[in-house]
């Protein structure tokens, strides 16, 4: 069924990375013609002093935000976006700087849609390709090395009125620039480091075998897998490792670029559903489901999964493993990484270990998973019964 006769690859995000990348923020804003940006963040980012880090790095410049919106909750929704848009309009902002993790970045994307396209009703813009044209200047400074949201064309926001997730897919959502500075991720606690790292790994792995895969996204994915496999455990062990932090952050961005162009599959369907029903952290859910779904997809994608062994384990291990055993070996490597992280940071390995998922919830998660759009990109079909079985395995 796989025929690579046509694909699209799109990554217009300017990436500024390095140990002093933040210092370039004022120049970027100027390039984009924004003089009064709105900063979108959350309370955690503010409490961790990350906004001060940004203000200190840009201290000797004309960078002067017009307003700060730091009330993004973990599970952000349409009302939050509308409130931030209102602040943007009231204070006559002309651009957005998002400082935070996935929730903050997705909220900022939604705010950008509202302030450029008008109105307060996000529902009208939901779906794939419903947003067109250029949006307002938008710069992202990620504070977790995992979601890759800084380079994706997707935003997920809760519909606060109807209690469901809204998915926005459009190239217009892509930020104009992403600033990857290790100073922003240094303070991440080990568990979050581990979970977000596994999130990035999942993005890269799913990007490398799902239906939308293409040669360009493959190269980004492969490099991202290699970095995560090499660095994640070490950085979880020594959080102050600046070089490791930077590399992980880059890996997350690369994984973001990869999956933004090839999309993700069943791991995400299950992960989104588990997050929606039981509020399990996205990265944790990714980590739990990844090996199970790889096994599920082995029938259709054995060869591709086998190739993952090379970035996961390095050339020696790859070439010393016989062809037919590589897929299983790759999955075993992922399991080994999981075990290591569980020992280092207490990263849950199965749903029961999260303490949030009850066995009764599994049916609802399965029902919700088959309606998740990322299932469309999974190579193997999965119906409610299949999802239920997978969940049972992962419990």
């Amino acid at each position, binding site marked *: 069924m796989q025929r690579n006769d046509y694909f699209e690859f799109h990554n217009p995000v300017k990436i500024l990375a390095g140990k002093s990348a933040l210092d370039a923020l004022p120049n970027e804003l100027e390039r984009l013609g924004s003089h009064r940006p709105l900063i979108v963040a959350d309370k955690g980012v503010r409490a961790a002093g990350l906004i001060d880090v940004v203000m200190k790095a840009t201290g000797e410049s004309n960078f002067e935000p017009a307003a700060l919106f730091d009330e993004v909750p973990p599970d952000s929704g349409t009302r939050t976006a509308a409130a931030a848009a209102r602040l943007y309009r009231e204070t006559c902002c002309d651009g957005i700087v998002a400082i935070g993790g996935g929730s903050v970045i997705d909220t900022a994307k939604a705010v950008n849609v509202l302030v450029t396209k008008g109105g307060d009703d996000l529902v009208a813009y*939901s*779906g794939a390709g*419903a947003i067109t044209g250029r949006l307002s200047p938008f710069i992202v400074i990620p504070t977790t090395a995992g979601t890759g949201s800084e380079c994706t064309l997707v935003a997920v926001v809760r519909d606060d009125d109807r209690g469901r997730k809204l*998915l926005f897919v459009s190239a217009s959502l892509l930020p104009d620039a992403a600033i990857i500075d290790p100073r922003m991720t240094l303070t991440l606690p080990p568990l979050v480091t581990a979970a977000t790292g596994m999130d990035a790994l999942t993005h890269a792995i799913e990007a490398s075998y*799902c*239906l*939308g895969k293409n040669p360009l996204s493959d190269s980004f994915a492969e490099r991202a897998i290699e970095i995560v496999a090499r660095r994640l455990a070490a950085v979880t062990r020594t959080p102050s490792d600046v070089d490791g932090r930077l590399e992980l952050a880059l890996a997350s961005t690369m994984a973001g670029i990869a999956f933004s162009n090839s999309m993700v599959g069943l791991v995400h369907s299950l992960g989104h559903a588990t997050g929606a029903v039981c509020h399990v952290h996205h990265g944790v859910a990714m980590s739990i489901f990844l090996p199970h779904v790889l096994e599920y997809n082995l029938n259709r994608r054995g060869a591709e999964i086998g190739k993952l062994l090379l970035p996961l384990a390095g050339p020696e291990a790859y070439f010393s493993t016989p062809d037919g055993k590589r897929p299983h070996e790759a999955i075993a490597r992922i399991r080994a990484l999981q075990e290591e992280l569980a020992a280092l940071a207490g990263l849950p390995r199965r749903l029961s270990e999260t303490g949030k998922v009850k066995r009764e919830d599994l049916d609802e998660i399965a029902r919700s998973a088959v309606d*998740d759009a990322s299932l*469309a990109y999974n190579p193997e079909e999965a119906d409610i019964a299949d999802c239920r079985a997978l969940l049972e395995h992962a419990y």
Partner: protein
Amino acid sequence: MNSIKQTSHNAPKPRRRPFARSYARLALGLVGRAFAVAQRIDPEVRRELSGLPRGFSFALAVHPHGPSICLRMGDKGRLSYTGPAPERPDVLMRLQNMSSALAVLTFSKSAFEVYARNGLAVSGDLPATMAIIRALGLVETLLLPRAIVRRVLKRVPPIPALRKHAERLAIYLALPFAGPRKEHDYAA
């Protein structure tokens, strides 16, 4: 703002593909009618679509000016084929160009694959779209020989052979009477 369209005399003219277009129109019409009939007779199609609210409409169109079909959930929970797509259906699936459209409508590629390659854009409620696509897979199974269905679906839904053949017969018999239904101006 309407501006006067001016093209220079040597500007290349678009090369139309009348046959492709006619085929797309025919195939879309067929799918639209079959969808409406199948929802009435097949319990699984009906179950997949049972989550859609009354008055919900979804459309499949060939972008930008190609043929289109629209199906609408009636007040009694019955799906009807209502002809070309209105301006704003609840879910609009757009085949992005004629090549993608032909790939899907000649059943040589799966809708998922075309979607993954940006050949199909969806605007509207995505969970509902997933249900619609699943239902579309069932309709295709009912409509087409197994050999073709295997090519366009990741997995052929297991429908008992006797039921499948009976329903296939019923659908083909009912096709000429299946629409499009002129309906009252429900937007007013």
